[in-house]
């Protein structure tokens, strides 16, 4: 891996602390940032321009994971609100999606660094909002209570103005959660992808599919 290829600015500890002190964070957020999982950009290195493509990677193999225990608890619960177990496939947390979310928000790349800020701020908001409404954090809420909050923030297009920032967070969190979920064997099967196997011939879609599409010639 090549140092020069790392696109993210390297932030030393002093800069990070200064950034945290000046960030417009509430006292509640502040406490959480002190114990870890800050939304300062990751100082880790990426996998470089010539990574080993043959091996299988797990979250944490290339750059360290950074969620605090409290954040991870909220992530796990929210992942499963977004993709719960059903009759076809298991829940997001059962197939390791919280680790994927952690890998994503801990990655030293610009897109993920933007998501890191959105998601960590959003997780803090979620706990604060649920404490405001119900008296305890999101993970401690019951399903109905969590649903009440999620219903308010699940659509950027229709969320009330006071929830627009939270809706942005939910949208990004849902994208990352689904990215982690549908790249697992369970998720890939669920969505109906059945390729990646060697075949001796390729015949195209079966007749019943063509019929459904109205293609008769």
């Amino acid at each position, binding site marked *: 891996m*090549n140092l*020069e*290829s790392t696109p993210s600015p390297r932030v030393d500890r002093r800069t990070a602390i200064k950034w945290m002190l000046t960030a417009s964070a509430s006292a509640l957020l502040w406490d959480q940032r002190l114990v870890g999982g800050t939304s300062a950009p990751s100082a880790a290195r*990426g*996998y470089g*321009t010539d*990574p080993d*493509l*043959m091996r*299988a*990677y797990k979250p944490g*193999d*290339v750059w360290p994971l950074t969620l605090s225990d409290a954040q991870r608890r909220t992530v796990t619960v929210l992942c499963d*609100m*977004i*993709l*719960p177990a*059903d009759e*076809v496939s298991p829940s997001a947390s059962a197939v390791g999606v919280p680790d994927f979310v952690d*890998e*994503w928000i801990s*990655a030293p*790349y*610009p897109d993920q660094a933007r998501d890191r800020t959105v998601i960590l701020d959003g997780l803090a908001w979620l706990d604060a909002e649920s404490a405001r409404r119900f008296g305890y954090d999101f993970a401690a809420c019951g399903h109905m209570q969590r649903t009440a909050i*999620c219903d308010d923030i*699940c*659509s*950027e*297009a*229709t969320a009330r103005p006071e929830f627009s920032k939270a*809706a942005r967070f939910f*949208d990004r969190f*849902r*994208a*990352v*959660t*689904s*990215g*982690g979920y*549908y*790249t697992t064997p369970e998720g*890939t099967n*669920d*969505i*109906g*992808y*059945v*390729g*990646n*196997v060697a*075949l*001796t011939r*390729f015949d*195209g*879609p079966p007749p*019943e*599919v063509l019929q*459904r*599409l109205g*293609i008769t010639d």
Partner: protein
Amino acid sequence: MPFVTPDTTQDQYDAIVVGSGAAGGQAAYTLTMEGVKVLMLEAGRRYDPATETPMFQTNGMAPLGGIGTPDKSFGFYDSTVDGGWEVPGEPYTNASADPERQFRWWRPRMLGGRTNHWARHALRNGPYDFKYRSRDGLGFDWPVTYDDVAPYYDKVEMLIGVYGANLGMENTPDSPEGILLPPPAPRAGERLAQHRARKLGVPIVPFRRAVLTQPLDFTTLPARIHPGNARAQRILVDDMKARAACLWATPCGRGCSIRANYQSTTVHIPPAMATGNLDILPNAMAREVTLRPDGTADGVIYIDKRTGAERLVRARVVILAAGACETVRILLNSKPQGFPRGLANSSGIVGRYIMDTVGAGIGGQIPLLEGLPPMNEDGAGGSHLYAPWWLYKEQAAGKLGFPRGYHIEFGADRSPPAGNGIGEIAALAGGSYGRKLKADARRYYGSFMFFSGRGEMIPNEKSFCEIDPSVKDRWGIPVLRFHWQWSDHELRQAQHMLSTFSDLVVAMGGKVIPRPEYSGRQSISQGGFIIHEVGGAMMGSDPSTSATDRWGQTWDVKNLFLADGATFCSNADKNPTLTIMAMAWRTADRIVEKMRRKDA
């Protein structure tokens, strides 16, 4: 002769080939098969598709679910090594801070260059494409005709293996019998688009891609490719036997360990190595061509990237095939006495008329494709159908408002999900989550289409490159500075693409996925973004307006040849790679002929 190091190169070669991609691979193949001793310089590392291709690795095994990052622009499993829009330590600059006036230069640093990740779209230029100025007064004619190049298209197609169909369409040449491999069966979304496009008059037909849909016919092809050369035929028979047919899985952009598609590293380099006539020197960054006192090329100075040391290698003939812009850079950085403007540049044309391809596209969602039963649509690892340009008569009648054509690349996405998730599904489903999101994902997966245009740009005075007066790369080599501007021709063409694609989506009963604007200016890709850059050292019939003759031989230095896209006089809406290979083969044939006549 094998892979060599700076300390094991020979004192003198018959030919030095700078670059190992479509042009360098082809030139080295043709020369070594004819007994010429070749040294190939490659700026990147050695690369072996047999052991380095992640054939069946899933996105879930990759960091971030395999998505593209600044380290790997086209996704984790894209075969590109040490390359992308930025190469560490090897910058380029743009004269303008305005993104619309900037050029993006995609470069690999690996054996085989960009052929390893190439989409394998292998289209022939048509007869008009070599002489378009004579038809519409714009740009430049080539000093060759389609008939001059056709025998080389035939040979390249036989060697690399191309699937497709002969269709008898205008300016979209057929291949002789027995050359094309059978096209793969279209996928569901491709069939639907083909069916519905008919009423719009858009002809959707089998694509041509360099993928083996069946094994190559090693009993007849080698003799057709190398008539009268028994040794070359023998080598090629063995090599063709070692290439397997497509196994109908994994995207071609990862490369192919079973050699079922074309990459220089699977098709050109192995037989060239088997001749015993090829030395390959990786990690050698060519800086300049040196001259002998008599004004002929002496050799190439390169930087050994492992040590930073400067080295010289010598040959009777030097062939630049480094990729159009890198070839230009080497010429402009070669300034022996008497050549203050750079080598082969007495015309002043080196660096001028850089062209890319016009690109614009839209997406759509097609309800008819919702909820289809699970089916394997991996296919040949790329598109099976496309639409060649079809509005020749309307254009000639002045009805379109822009010159030159575009072809359409398209597909329905039933690829495996990647780490960036299914945001478009959630958006479509009104922000669903929970059990409903899972049901929505099953319903909408596979119902999204994309349509992309690939159109011809007219070369213009404002799109060129030169040596940056101050910036150097980590090896101390002055870098290129780009200037770029699309003209109204291209902007209007991009606008036409969008309206055509929107009509296609609607004809399929679908909805265009909303975008804020549909103007050509806002939708056209940035210069360089389609990675079809050609030109910069145009060939021609007049030494005062071109860098080389019609064989790629530079007017100014008789044993210096350009074999890559730098010599292109136009950039047809056909992807340039097949033409690069055909022209490189033609150049190499010319060199062999000259060597036999003791003229080089």
